């Protein structure tokens, strides 16, 4: 049974569509060297070209191949998501469990979560960039930090719900230690809400990477990133509209894909 709900969630049409979209995007990113003959860094004199056979998506203002830049840009997003979300989730989960177990820590942690939520992702990003400098690590740290209070709160409320159920009381009566109670009983029963949040966080990671690179505190040029490409394209919207379309579509697809997965899982796992 433990995973039948998850399996049911994964089999929902909505989740399937989301998974397909994400899989295609990730595959494109992974196959970037195969799919694109050009390196994303190679500059040429053919700046701002329209779609052509040589450059299927055209080139940017420095004559770099846009297809290559978009495909390699996906890789950055995948790296950010894969590193940052587990980091944020684990930290948030641990703090959330701690806050559900002790009234004093609990209050303190809850208020610090509130404080962290008060910073929008971008302001948080600026803070991080100021402290450790711009670049991919800054994006990873920002995404992780933004996720800590989100996972923290969800874990806390899920743990509190489970703690009030009879099986938790029964475990206590049987003399099960607090740590074992948390890890063996409460956490496995709280994991549903966390899975849903994780899927949602993936779409948020793409979004935050885009936003940070867009304002120039994310991935450092000349490295390719979807957000940075989008930012650069703004200046040439009138001349080559095709420039902005590709990164826009990919960002939208990634966000949509992860949101659909989260939504589908949510229906199967949480709304019983």
């Amino acid at each position, binding site marked *: *049974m*433990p995973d039948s709900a998850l399996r049911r969630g994964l089999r929902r049409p909505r989740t399937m569509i989301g998974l397909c979209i994400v899989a295609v995007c990730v595959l494109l990113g992974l196959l970037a060297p195969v799919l694109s003959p050009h390196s994303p860094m190679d500059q040429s004199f053919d700046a701002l070209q329209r779609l052509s056979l040589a450059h299927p998506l055209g080139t940017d203002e420095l004559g770099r191949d846009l297809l290559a830049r978009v495909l390699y840009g996906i890789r950055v997003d995948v790296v950010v998501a894969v590193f940052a979300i587990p980091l944020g989730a684990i930290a948030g989960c641990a703090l959330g469990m701690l806050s559900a177990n002790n009234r004093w820590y609990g209050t303190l942690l809850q208020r610090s979560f509130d404080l962290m939520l008060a910073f929008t992702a971008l302001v948080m990003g600026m803070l991080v960039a100021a402290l450790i400098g711009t670049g991919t690590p800054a994006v990873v740290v920002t995404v992780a930090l933004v996720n800590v209070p989100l996972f923290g709160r969800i874990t806390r409320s899920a743990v509190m719900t489970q703690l009030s*159920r*009879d*099986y938790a*009381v*029964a*475990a*206590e*009566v*049987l*003399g*099960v*230690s607090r740590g*074992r109670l948390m890890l*063996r*009983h409460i956490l*496995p*029963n709280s994991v549903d809400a966390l899975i849903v949040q994780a899927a949602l966080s993936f779409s948020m990671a793409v979004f935050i990477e885009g936003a940070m690179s867009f304002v120039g505190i994310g991935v450092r040029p000349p490295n390719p990133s979807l957000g940075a490409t989008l930012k650069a394209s703004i200046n040439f919207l009138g001349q080559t509209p095709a420039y902005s379309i590709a990164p826009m579509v990919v960002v939208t697809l990634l966000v949509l894909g992860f949101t659909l997965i989260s939504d589908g899982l949510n229906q199967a796992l949480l709304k019983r």
Partner: protein
Amino acid sequence: MTHLNAHAGTAADPVLQVQGLSTRFHTGRGTVRAVENVSFDVRRGETLGLVGESGSGKSVTAMSLLNLVREPGNIEAGHILFRGKDIVALSNKELRGIRGNGLSMVFQDPMSSLNPIMRIGDQITEAIHGKERTTAAQARERAVKLMKLVGIPDPALRLADYPHRFSGGMRQRVMIAMALANEPDVIVADEPTTALDVTVQAQILDVLADINRQLGTAIILITHNLGVVARSCDRVAVMYAGRIVEQARTADLFADPRHPYTQALLAATPRLLASRAHALMPIEGQPPNLADAITGCAFAQRCHFAHAACQEQPPTTQLDDRRFDCWKTASGEPLPPLPRHRSQGPEAVALVRAMPVAEDPQSRTGLVPPLLEVRDLVVRFNVPSTSLNPFAPGRHLHAVDGVSFTIDRAETVGLVGESGCGKSSLGKALMGINPVTTGQVVFDGKDVTQLSGEQRQWVRRQLQMVFQDPMSALNPRMTIGDALAEPLIVHGLCKGAAQVQARVGELMQLVGLDPAVATRYPHEFSGGQRQRVVIARGLAVNPKLLVCDEAVAALDVSLQAQVINLLKDLQARLGLSMLFIGHDLASVRYVSDRILVMYLGQVVEEGPAETLTLQPQHPYTVSLLSAVPEPDPVTEASRQRIMLGGDLPSPLDPPSGCRFRTRCPVGPLHREGRERCVSEQPALMPVAGSPGSKAACHFAGEMTLAGATATRVIPLHESKELIPT
């Protein structure tokens, strides 16, 4: 009060006819045949009982009657004839004309059936939509009249109140008033008293009986409680696996059941007035899954009298006024008596060696100190003030207020009381789940309220608990094998995986489960089996005392009997002591040696189980006993009923002096010169002439269970089955 034949003159005049009704639910996992070929008539002015256990299709039948079945459900076949029209075939507009006007419904949970943000008066007037237009003043007047009819005090004043100002019983009265708003011919009441306390249940049943008698409204009373049927119904239809297996006049059905399921259900139901020496007879096995096609008799697999013919659909036998579907009785012969309950079989006995047997003959004589002694226990909860003033003092709720009692070795003590009396808080305080505010809990000579660390773990091995809802008491993500192994590992009782596994197997056998199913998850078991697992888990650490908190309340009658018998059996074989907490006196009485009765946080009476149920001393115990409906129409008809007025006072603000005085039939509200009850709190004092009994009443023994109750102390199981027609 009895009206068994009150409407004999109009008996032949059906107001609602159900013919061959089948309702099915088309789910992803197949078609569930919730109601299958159900036919019955409701006659003008009668009360028809529809009884069955959970999943028998009685509620779906009720929904079908009003054509309220929604996706994925569908009425597949049959006719419901009402006022010459077939309800199944009506359009939504025509249905609206009938619902509320001709047929109306009262639901189980009065807490969620009223709109919390609408005044009661508005909700009742909204239900009034007669043919002629009514002015606001007329509607208001009618609402007041309806509220008076269902016994709501000060109706004109209460019109402006919101639902949260009403207690559960009062809300159910409002629901009934709304159902009556347009003078329907038939009221369908779906478990109208299941969510209510037994004294309030008695009030609501009385209201329904009054309506039935005064207005001639026919009532279809859906319930799982055979006592309710015996008390209120003229005729009964028994449902099993979506079919009606038997219908008859109430007296006939109880005296001479013609379907083995009816007979088995009667034998499994705990009674207040039967001898305790007879074990309840559980119905072995489980009801069939309605998603599977059933050929032949649905009850055949659990039936004592099943034979080859039962593989085929049994014929419907019509005999005078009754109908039943059974091969055994098709000839018109009555059913033979049920064979005696067999023991659980040899596999359960093997374990006794492994467990300490602590039957100490000296314990009863008082030479050995009791296993558990509770002295002046107080459990207090802080309740946040509702005042807007931030400096207002917080309030205290005394859930348990000065309770003292003892439990001897190998003794079972029952603890009964209505919801909110503090019985569960007391049990949890003993287990160390609720903090003890003041007082002592002395277990085996040690005060366990003062323990910490190492010694706390020791106490946890001595005291274990069984919970009300076995589904929530088991971790859904853990196999039951792991759940049973956990206490063994935590307390280091077994070394090595092999030993743990062996012990888990033993435990499962002890409670009558096959050790092979240890790898399954809780949702794969039935309610009764899950409760066995919970009991086995409690027993894993060889406790000396088992606290059972409403351990059978969530189970169906047939499973309830299984669990009660198991507990009694275990108690006898393992020398366990038990505290059996419950609200149902009949089932508590079966298990307990002594019973404590609680009211608003205090023990009002204590005594040996038999004495307490037959010669109660405290007026509250007397009222409680008389409110419990006995599954026997003869007793019910002749029994003196004491109706308690009003509701339980708030435990936040208990009455001064005797806490029961505001509802007491012999208290200051009903008798002159009882100022003492107001000013002085009665102590729990021994009752003269009744060894072991104590009561907390200044006028203990003044009120008695009169007449019929005391004389009918015969073992009903034996006599019942043998009564010839």
